């Protein structure tokens, strides 16, 4: 085998393909698109124009490219007081681990293109959720290593929020498992091919999972750890240049990865397309459908910026513990009820 064949085989191996191409490259494009949409949508709703002059024909889309170039060439300043190794490692590890859930989620029902062996596929939802809970610890680490009051306060806020949303996210997603009686993402998606999407059958769990995603990636109205007027940039206060972009990109990648899990569990995955044989029908087109659904979720989250202000920490925790947690539990109960009467 030549070197090119070996490289192609490695890239083509579903877990690597999903993390590198769908995850990394896809979320780079989607991060640019989502930030652009966020700014444009907020501008439309707030009766402004938004980014414009960089490319009037494209509605200022190149503005975001210019921003990325600026981040890439900005001089990174590393203060003398930081704890150097965690300071550098936290954003990188956070970003890589944010993408790891994509290494275990299936994009097709064709077993030839599953990223995990069929026996492990039985627990793919649990594995994906377990990995999803990892990245926030790196945000706290980034704040702690920065050795800056704003960063530490931001990290502590993140810790408060994690405790609240982690449970809701997992219970919300488990609502889907309760409805279908399996942890296998493929089986969960196929259960939605028959009657209807779980988002409609089990709206409580869907809403809980959706709001938990919004919370976990600190999008509006839960942009509490990085709230600009209060704590500068929260855990990322001391970061500049590419490292700052990694931190911000990490949040978008986590949002994208979680949106893919949401698209699979609640939004019907690759349906209406039924995966067939071969690379194109069996893998590429179904994954395109899933990614498009996830992108719609990401854009919907971006839209929230236009209408919501920022909650205070106590308001967010209030909402999480008093309303969302019972709602997620009710979602599980609803799922079990539906499963018992054989609706799914």
């Amino acid at each position, binding site marked *: 085998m030549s070197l090119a064949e070996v490289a192609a085989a490695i890239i083509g191996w579903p877990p690597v393909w999903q993390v590198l191409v769908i995850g990394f490259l896809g979320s780079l494009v989607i991060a640019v698109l989502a930030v652009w949409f966020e700014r444009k949508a907020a501008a439309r709703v707030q009766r*402004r124009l938004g980014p*414009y002059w960089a490319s009037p024909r494209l509605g200022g889309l190149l503005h975001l490219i210019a921003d990325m170039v600026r981040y890439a060439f900005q001089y990174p300043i590393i203060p003398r007081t930081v704890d150097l190794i965690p300071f550098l490692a936290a954003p990188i590890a956070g970003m890589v681990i944010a993408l790891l859930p994509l290494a275990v989620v299936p994009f097709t029902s064709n077993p030839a293109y599953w990223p995990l062996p069929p026996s492990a596929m039985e627990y793919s939802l649990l594995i994906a959720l377990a990995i999803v809970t990892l990245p926030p610890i790196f945000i706290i680490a980034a704040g702690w290593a920065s050795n800056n009051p704003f960063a530490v306060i931001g990290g502590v806020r993140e810790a408060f929020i994690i405790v609240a949303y982690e449970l809701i996210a997992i219970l919300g997603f488990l609502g889907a498992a309760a409805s279908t009686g399996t942890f296998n993402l493929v089986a969960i998606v196929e259960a939605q091919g028959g009657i209807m999407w779980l988002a409609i059958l089990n709206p409580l769990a869907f809403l809980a999972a959706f709001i938990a995603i919004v919370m976990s990636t600190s999008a509006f109205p839960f942009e509490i750890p990085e709230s600009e007027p209060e704590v500068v940039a929260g855990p990322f206060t001391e970061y500049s240049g590419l490292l700052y972009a990694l931190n911000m990109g990490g949040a978008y990648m986590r949002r994208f990865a979680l949106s893919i899990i949401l698209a699979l569990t609640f939004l019907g995955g690759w349906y209406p397309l039924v995966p067939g044989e071969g690379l194109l029908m069996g893998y590429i087109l179904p994954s395109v459908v899933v990614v498009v659904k996830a992108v719609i979720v990401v854009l919907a989250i971006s839209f929230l910026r236009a209408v919501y202000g920022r909650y205070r920490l106590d308001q967010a925790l209030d909402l999480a513990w008093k*309303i969302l947690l019972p709602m997620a539990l009710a979602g599980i109960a609803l799922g079990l009820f539906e499963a018992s009467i054989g609706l799914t």
Partner: protein
Amino acid sequence: MAPRIGLKSLEKRRTLIDGVRSNLHVLAIGVKYFVNPRRMTLVYPKEYPRLSEGYRGFIILEKKKCISCAACARICPSAAMKMIRVMEPDPKHPEKPRMKQYPVINYQRCIFCGYCVDVCPTEALYHVNYHDVVYDNLAEMFWDLDTFQKEPEYKTALEGRPVRIMVHEELGLIKVPVGEGG
């Protein structure tokens, strides 16, 4: 004096239904504006506001009317206007030049308050109705007597489209295009 006892009623607690309803309401407003945006941004160099006559823009001197009373230079609160002496031919004795005082203006200092225009007894000073003229360096903003008599070139008008900004009862600020005349 004994303390007065008063009753204070707390606001009614918002119920879950209220919260859901207000969230849906705000989302509906957001979607409404997203679908049908009513933007009021002025795309500035492409569109520029046509300001009304009487706007306090740049100040120009009509030298013929000036009687060298120096009232403008004295009233100027920011000491932008100064009198200078120039030699010029006397209209009565053309062979003998005479000394006369005229105001000049330093636009680094001027705050466009318009006092000088108001105080001038012969209306030798007047405002033009634009304000957005750009200079390459500070020295150019120091106008000598010749420059002070010419209206500066209004470059924005060459590229942009004049609009008038008005308040609409329902729509808020709106832009109405105006023709070249006014």
